[in-house]
């Protein structure tokens, strides 16, 4: 029973973070209709910013959110403006050119990081990285709990932004129907640029709050991109509520898989869920929840 509860707790804590990662991807997917395979690489850039700030300037990793998020917001906007938007106007046989472009961008980002920081494993060790507290017999890692609540706060902020502000409404309108939104006077090009920036900033936040308990190397983007698209598919493309449920499901499935089946199958479980969801509920949770 204790093992079960402990697994449940660690799954939920991990799931909150995954939700934040998936939400950024989901936003980009919804507005632009493409899979952003550079998502993990953007997270990696955010993590390196945190690492650099902590190591060279001694700033607390949680405070570096205020540096990593704006810089990734800018980077995301530049990527969208100068590499992805020009592709919309070009005639080509395959519509997947934009997806391939994100692969190229991911390669460039990863290699630049390797060039600057080398391939060595890096980590941020703070005084509270290893701290835990107990409720009953269940141990909670302080850093993971903090990460969970920060992720929750960002998620709530995102909801408020998408539901209550004009800009948020324009983003949702563009995601629902680009042409109709254009006719209603929404500058859809500006919206795509902003959305990519927002998505990048969200994933940077996730990377930053993960830093105190995780390690870092240039190729870390790949596994997280994979996780992000599993979450996005689970939640239903373009659905932010779905992304949170998708994140929680993936977190729980990974935790239970690692405890009861074996550590080696950790990645496999996510992919199996992915294929099963594609087959049986192709719309993801969005379809089931009608949100």
């Amino acid at each position, binding site marked *: 029973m204790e093992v079960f509860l402990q697994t449940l707790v660690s799954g939920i804590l991990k799931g909150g973070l995954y939700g934040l990662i998936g939400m950024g991807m989901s936003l980009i997917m919804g507005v632009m209709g493409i899979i952003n395979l550079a998502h993990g690489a953007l997270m990696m850039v955010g993590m390196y910013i945190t690492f650099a700030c902590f190591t060279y300037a001694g700033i607390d990793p949680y405070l570096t959110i205020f540096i990593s998020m704006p810089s990734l917001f800018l980077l995301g906007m530049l990527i969208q403006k100068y590499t992805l938007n020009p592709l919309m106007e070009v005639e080509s046989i395959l519509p997947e050119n934009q997806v391939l472009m994100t692969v190229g961008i991911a390669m460039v980002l990863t*290699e630049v990081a390797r060039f600057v920081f080398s391939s060595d494993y890096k980590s941020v060790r703070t005084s509270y990285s290893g701290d835990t507290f107990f409720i009953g017999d269940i141990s909670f890692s302080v850093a993971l709990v903090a990460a969970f609540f920060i992720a929750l706060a960002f998620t709530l902020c995102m909801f408020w932004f998408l539901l209550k502000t004009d800009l948020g409404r324009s983003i949702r309108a563009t995601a629902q129907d680009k042409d109709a939104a254009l006719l209603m006077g929404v500058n859809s090009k500006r919206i795509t640029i902003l959305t990519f920036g927002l998505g990048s900033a969200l994933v940077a936040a996730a990377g930053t709050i993960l830093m105190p308990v995780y390690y870092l190397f240039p190729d870390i983007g790949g596994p997280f991109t994979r996780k992000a698209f599993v979450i996005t598919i689970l939640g239903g493309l373009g659905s932010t509520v779905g992304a949170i449920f998708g994140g929680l499901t993936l977190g729980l499935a990974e935790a239970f898989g690692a405890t009861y089946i074996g550590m080696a199958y950790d*990645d496999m479980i996510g992919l199996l869920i992915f294929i099963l969801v*594609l087959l049986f509920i192709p719309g993801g949770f969005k379809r089931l929840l009608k949100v």
Partner: protein
Amino acid sequence: MRKYSPILLLFILILFPIAVRDHYHQHLMILVLMWVVIGSGWNVIAGYTGQVSFGDAAFFGTGAYTAGLFVTKLGISAWWGMLFGGIAAMAIAFPFGWICFRLRGAYFALATLALNEVMRHIATIWESLTDGMVGILVMQTFVSKVPYYYIALGLAVISVIGVQIIMGSKWGYYFVSIREDQDAAESLGINTHYYKMLSLNVAAFLTGMAGALFMNYMGFIDPEVVFSLHDISIMAILVGIVGGVGTLYGPVVGAFVMVAVHEFFRTGFFGFFKGIAALTGSDMITVFAKYVMQAHVLGFGILVVLVILLLPNGIVGDWNLIVKKIFPVKTREVTS
């Protein structure tokens, strides 16, 4: 000229190992020919049928592992893998396509990506069969590279001619119609699911054969090499895109360009900087050359970005555009 250039190219390729005795360049040409086969396979499913596959490594690795396991488990020659590797890849492609072709566009691309990852995990975890991360080591049949070269050339020629025959037949027209508009094709009475399956199986067969060739030639495989997303699946897409999507000779040009560029960056412009550094004795250039060689994957990534931005239909697809850019048509000025 256009009509005879393929025959001329083939003639040059046949004479190549006689003219160039250097092992390094022969090795590069074998890789180019292998990529021609993989690129042609990718082109059938993605370029002609429009179902972009991000998981060619699944078929490539299956072919390679089939050839390897023939030696380690059954004790027969790995060359049998050339045929059975392709068939094994089809055995993977068949159930996968059966299930996943109900998905469209980006969803299908994601499913192929997942297939790639699942296959890599299976090869890693199923240690009793595949030896996991240890990989499979097979003795090479020939010491010289020339026999491998001609086998690879034969395979490449077969795949290009095979694709040409398929695309000239009724199948080919059905494939293209599915790419252009699946719903319209369906409403005209084409069984799109069936023809997409056919297309995927052709692609899987070619890619599986290339995988078996890789096993025979390299003599060593492990899951990270043959099921690699970056080095196989993405490279296959790049070969297709750079050469030209949906063109017969696109993969040929693409394979040549991609392998050349890869080596070009990896060796620091073929030792160009090292030569200059030795000539002038300047330390700065030596350091610079070292950085250039370290950044070879970066150069690769930048190339990808540039090609997609500037040549969305590839070198063969946009050939007329390139010619126009380089040799602008001279118009005579009319003076009154």
